[in-house]
């Protein structure tokens, strides 16, 4: 425990330093009170908290298909396994629950589990509840589900078309909302403009991935008391009402409780709510408390993602680069269901679509398309990364196309310092800022001149060096009314007004004068307890160590409202602000008591060093705990009419967070910070790798409560933004199969990949928050992806850069011609050759030739003879004829230690003896499905047959999700085995296959043949 002692000593030293130092605690780099526990392994994460005796464990059976009807579910075999208590299916869900309310008016249903159709890979289909998680997972293999596969809609642009398979039939289209907005006179501005610059961007589907996955412990209470849930859901608590409606209980009968620590939240923990509903039903079915801990595979595949977005953005521009109008056409791919609060990703930025620029004419078209992917949800940055990727790429394109300096184009359009408070055309009310000053700080502290010289020198030497910029207005404290902008003004009028951004806090002082604060932000790891204690200490003349802050909200006992939660960077402005207001009320009451005792006017009472005194007689001091104690021990000695006790709860909402008006003008957030980033990169021409030479990020988040915490947010957001720029993407196959099921497939940056950014602060206080603070939690998630992309685009001189900028993709942008394959070489290739290609996201296509030492007739005969065919198919045991050219088979496919046993169907068609045929196979296993279809051509040649094959291969489920790196190699191995065995069989060789593991197992068990 040496490390811990060192840490405590250090903390003590620093805190005594703080005590001795005069002046406020807010604004200091106070050490996090959270860390002593976290760094010594004594944190309380959701999975660590003890559960009641008899609590069962759940495992979720998930859809292997992107789009399929559920024909039947048979749970009998699973239920009979020892240790299995119950299996929850769609039938139970239909009986006890209702679909989640959806944010747009469309005839579509989202239940917490698939009812009759699955719409994305990973969608819950059944929940097994067992005595432990091992048994529950064992039982998943025994739940038999029959599916009828349907074509999948995967690409958002194709999914929006008339020919696409439709996910929700009653809607009739995958486009579930399409709204047009216009502010100022954009059409006239485009008409009159000297130049029009446009760009289409494809922002990828990605996430911000916490170390800790979802955790839910649910219990169905006796006596109609509803459900009790402990989880790491993060809010917004408007979703509490959504879940209560889905569970068909009053919201007081859905008690949500929280734990002390969080292994990261980042928005995605909002999606825990879907599983809160599911696990409540599982607990009801099992008649016991049920715990579920999401694993990494489940998290990557089926938790949540930011919607990928296709945007066409245009600017009307004057020759000097001044913007006259902006026009967006945005389409979010929200996945299979519109899960509340979606389509909020599309509207979160709505008031601030003009960014940092003073352009007054704006047109916006917003569409949401549904596809066969995991439903989107909150992801840190929430709409900002997508929007700024379009806007700030466009600003660079304007500079390139008009031959201007990109920095000058930005500078020329920035909102002027004297314009604040500034009302943006779509409604954002920006209270304060000095964007020129922030930019100048970045340029100066980041030494842009030096970077420009480096670029010049590098280019002179033939190297690829680029510089990118991004100017971002960072919204915080979401106005709950912004989501209703998706509705027309008439629909809004009908639904009733929605607005505000309520934060609540409770400060109480107990009989010994100790202070406890309860806040509504729930833990996310940011250090809220630390900053809250700093705020309260200042108000009450105490030190932060005197204040205990509790973030373990309980919806039955604590103050909360719909905007509560850990999202939209609302802590510093709203939560800490409401804490400040509550502490002021405590102070006011204590000042009255002290004034009464000291016979001094209340407004002269000062709080300092744990004492209260009148500024008129500073020598006579009352101890803080004595004054507070009176409210408990001696209510009779309080001033007349004063209530006993000392506890104040405050609900605070910024009055500026108004509902959208009838022209769709919406102040979508309460505060707006500013970021200006500069990124310099060098691209390795040989490898396509991007090296960040320098990254400068200049922030104005108003008054910083604790700069160390603020910089923690900047560093974390920067790392995630860098991941989005260079590495991270949830990838899907053309059939909707999910391909990013491990952290070796979904690549997040590690410490090795993240350079240290240069951080600069400017503090212009927000006039709309109690402490002048603006949010800082998401800015770099918005600015960093596009800033890096701009730098790479500058280095390469290209317009269309798509994230993530992996080396392979960057290399493709360099467009170097490839030497031709030596054709002679190809024909000399060994016994088999295969060329796999998966251009972009197409299915895996394999073609090649094999030379067989038997004439075509003999080869053909093998294919027509079931017994011979069985001996040729690798890993085939038990081939059974279904009809003339269809067989049912059990096939074990193994590559190295990986083994999957498939229930397969083999079909021969397009028979053209002895020249060729189609040979297809389709199989289902616990690891997912696999199918191959294609043609085999047989041509006679000297000494035998030249067999040419051309196959499309589709693999879904776990094998695709976790094995995508090796899929092509595996497919090749299996095809080659197939055709080599075919050749040997046809030429009369006996195939002595090594007995399969399955057969050996049966033999071992004494039941084999």
């Amino acid at each position, binding site marked *: 425990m040496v490390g811990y002692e060192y840490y405590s000593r250090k903390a003590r030293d620093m805190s005594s330093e703080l005590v001795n130092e005069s002046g406020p605690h807010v604004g200091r780099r106070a050490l996090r009170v959270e860390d002593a526990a976290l760094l010594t392994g004594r944190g309380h994460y959701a999975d660590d908290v003890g559960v009641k005796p008899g609590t069962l464990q759940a495992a979720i059976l998930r859809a292997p298909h992107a789009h399929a009807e559920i024909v039947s579910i048979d749970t009998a075999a699973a239920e009979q396994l020892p240790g299995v208590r119950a299996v929850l299916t769609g039938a139970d869900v239909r009986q006890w629950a209702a679909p989640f309310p959806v944010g747009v008016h469309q005839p579509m249903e989202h239940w917490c589990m698939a009812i009759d159709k699955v719409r994305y890979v990973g969608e819950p289909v059944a929940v097994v509840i067992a005595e432990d*998680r091992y048994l529950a997972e064992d039982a998943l293999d025994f739940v038999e589900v029959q599916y009828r596969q349907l074509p999948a809609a995967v690409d958002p642009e194709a999914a929006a078309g008339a020919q696409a398979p439709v996910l929700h039939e009653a809607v009739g289209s995958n486009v579930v909302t399409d709204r047009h907005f216009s502010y100022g006179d954009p059409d006239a501005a485009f008409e009159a403009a000297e130049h029009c610059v446009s760009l289409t961007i494809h922002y990828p589907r990605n996430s911000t991935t916490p170390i800790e996955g979802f955790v839910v412990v649910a219990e169905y209470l006796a006596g109609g008391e509803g459900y009790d849930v402990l989880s790491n859901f993060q809010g917004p608590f408007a979703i509490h009402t959504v879940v209560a409606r889905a569970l068909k209980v009053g919201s007081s009968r859905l008690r949500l409780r929280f734990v002390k620590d969080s292994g990261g939240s980042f928005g995605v923990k909002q999606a825990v709510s879907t599983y809160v509903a599911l696990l409540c039903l599982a607990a009801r079915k099992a008649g016991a408390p049920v715990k579920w801990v999401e694993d990494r595979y489940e998290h990557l595949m089926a938790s949540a993602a930011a919607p990928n977005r296709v945007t066409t953005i245009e600017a009307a521009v004057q020759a000097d680069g001044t913007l006259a109008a902006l026009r967006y056409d945005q389409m979010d791919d929200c996945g299979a269901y519109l899960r509340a609060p979606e389509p909020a990703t599309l509207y979160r930025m709505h008031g601030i679509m003009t960014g940092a620029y003073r352009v007054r004419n704006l047109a916006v078209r917003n569409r949401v398309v549904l596809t066969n992917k995991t439903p989107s949800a909150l992801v840190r940055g929430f709409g900002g990364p997508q929007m700024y990727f379009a806007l700030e790429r466009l600003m660079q394109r304007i500079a390139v196309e008009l031959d201007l300096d990109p920095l000058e184009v930005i500078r020329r359009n920035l909102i002027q310092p004297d314009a604040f408070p500034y009302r943006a055309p779509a409604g954002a009310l920006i209270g304060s800022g000095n964007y020129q000053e922030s930019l100048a700080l970045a340029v100066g502290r980041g030494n842009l001149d030096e970077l420009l010289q480096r670029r010049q020198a590098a280019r002179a030497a033939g190297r690829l060096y680029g510089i990118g910029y991004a100017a971002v207005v960072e919204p915080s404290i979401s106005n709950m009314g912004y989501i209703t902008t998706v509705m027309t003004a008439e629909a809004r009028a009908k639904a009733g007004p929605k607005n505000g951004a309520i934060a609540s806090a409770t400060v109480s002082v107990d009989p010994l004068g100790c202070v406890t604060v309860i806040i509504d932000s729930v833990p996310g790891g940011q250090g809220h307890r630390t900053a809250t204690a700093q705020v309260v200490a200042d108000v009450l003349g105490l030190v932060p160590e005197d204040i205990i802050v509790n973030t373990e909200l309980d919806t039955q006992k604590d103050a909360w409202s719909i905007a509560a939660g850990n999202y939209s960077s609302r802590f510093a402005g709203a939560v800490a602000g409401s804490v400040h207001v509550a502490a002021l009320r405590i102070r006011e009451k204590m000042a009255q008591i002290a004034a009464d005792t000291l016979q001094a006017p209340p407004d002269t009472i000062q709080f300092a060093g744990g004492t209260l005194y009148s500024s008129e007689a500073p020598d006579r001091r009352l101890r803080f705990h004595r004054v507070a104690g009176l409210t408990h021990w001696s209510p009779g000695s309080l001033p007349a009419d004063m209530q006993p006790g000392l506890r104040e709860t405050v609900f605070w909402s910024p009055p500026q967070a108004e509902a959208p008006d009838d022209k769709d003008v919406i102040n979508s957030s309460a505060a707006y910070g500013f970021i200006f980033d500069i990124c310099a990169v060098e691209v390795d021409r040989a490898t396509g790798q991007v090296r960040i030479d320098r990254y400068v990020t200049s922030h104005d988040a108003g008054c910083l409560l604790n700069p160390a915490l603020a910089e923690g947010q900047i560093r974390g957001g920067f790392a995630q933004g860098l991941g989005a720029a260079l590495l991270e993407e949830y990838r899907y196959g053309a059939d909707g199969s999910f391909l990013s099921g491990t952290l070796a497939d979904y690549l997040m940056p590690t410490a090795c*990949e993240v350079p240290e950014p240069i951080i600069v602060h400017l503090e212009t206080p927000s006039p709309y928050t109690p402490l002048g603070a603006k949010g800082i939690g998401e800015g770099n998630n918005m600015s960093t992806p596009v800033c890096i992309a701009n730098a790479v685009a500058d280095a390469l001189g290209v317009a269309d850069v798509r994230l993530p900028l992996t080396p392979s993709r960057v290399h493709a942008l360099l467009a170097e011609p490839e030497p031709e394959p*030596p054709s002679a070489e190809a024909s000399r290739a060994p016994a088999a050759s295969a060329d796999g290609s998966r251009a972009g996201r197409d299915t895996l296509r394999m073609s090649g030739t094999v030379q067989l030492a038997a004439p075509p007739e003999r080869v053909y005969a093998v294919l027509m003879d079931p017994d011979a065919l069985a001996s040729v198919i690798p890993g085939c045991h038990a081939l059974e004829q279904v009809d003339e050219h269809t067989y049912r088979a059990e096939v074990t496919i193994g590559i190295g230690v990986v083994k999957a046993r498939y229930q397969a169907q083999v079909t021969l068609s397009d028979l053209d003896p002895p020249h060729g045929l189609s040979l297809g196979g389709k199989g289902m296993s616990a690891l997912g499905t696999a199918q191959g279809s294609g043609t085999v051509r047989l041509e006679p040649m000297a000494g035998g047959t030249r067999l040419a094959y051309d196959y499309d291969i589709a693999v879904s489920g776990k094998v695709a999700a976790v094995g995508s790196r090796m899929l092509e190699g595996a497919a090749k191995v299996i095809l080659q085995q197939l055709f080599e065995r075919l050749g040997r069989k046809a030429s009369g060789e006996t195939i002595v296959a090594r007995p399969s593991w399955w057969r050996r197992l049966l033999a071992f068990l004494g039941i084999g043949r």
Partner: protein
Amino acid sequence: MKPSAFDYVRADRVQDIFDAFGHYGAEARILAGGQSLMAMVNYRLARPKALVDISRCAELDYMHVRDGHLVVGAAVTQARVQQREALAREVPLLHLAFPYISHFQIRSRGTVCGSIAHADPSAELPLCLAALQGSVVLRSKSGRRTLAADAFFTGMLMTAIEDGEFIEEVRFPLAAEGHRYRFDEVALRRGDFAIVSLAVVASASDVALTIGGVADRPVTRRWPRSVAGDLPAALAAFAWDLQAQSDPHVSAAYRRHLVRTLGQRLITEVLDETVS
């Protein structure tokens, strides 16, 4: 993500391994560092009946120089080989490659022989063994057989290990007088699976390039030193012959490009150095 049930057998002696093989047959898997196997077991991609843990088997815990080879027993971790003081002199290629093998936490659990047995086409140790023309000693109840690396690796994740056999040791030839060694690799992140990894071994007469991460196993091509002028064409042909594959992150064309470009860079470097 919990594995299906398996028996755990701790083999303190080699005889325990044979006993386990006798009891479980081919359903027993050797567990050494578990850095690849346990992930697959937890994902239930592999469902072995028994895991036979050799990590504490003293008989397999040895590393020494013998008959011109660095001999590494099956229980020796990658970290221990990497930390061997004389490694840079004894087997310079290994010394160059080790920093690319994942991260130190994984090297301190993962074993050299385990990586060879797993035969991941992107792994560095199989590449080094193939480039150096090392060998693998397979032991079974009936004795030992020694296979050259080329004969040992038979395909993606596939080797010549038969039922009842396990890798007892691998042998890396010591640096030869006048030979030069180079290693390079491109991965998406530090420590990731190689997109392409390259090892160059240059002798007085020829230069050999071994490529990992592209074909289904490490593949070597050897040219006389006089290839220098024809190198671009030779590398282009080699790159095509490897039948590169695409995956969701990387195109086959990019892999071929890296073989050509980095192959050219490494070989030119090594030829220049040995001349001077």
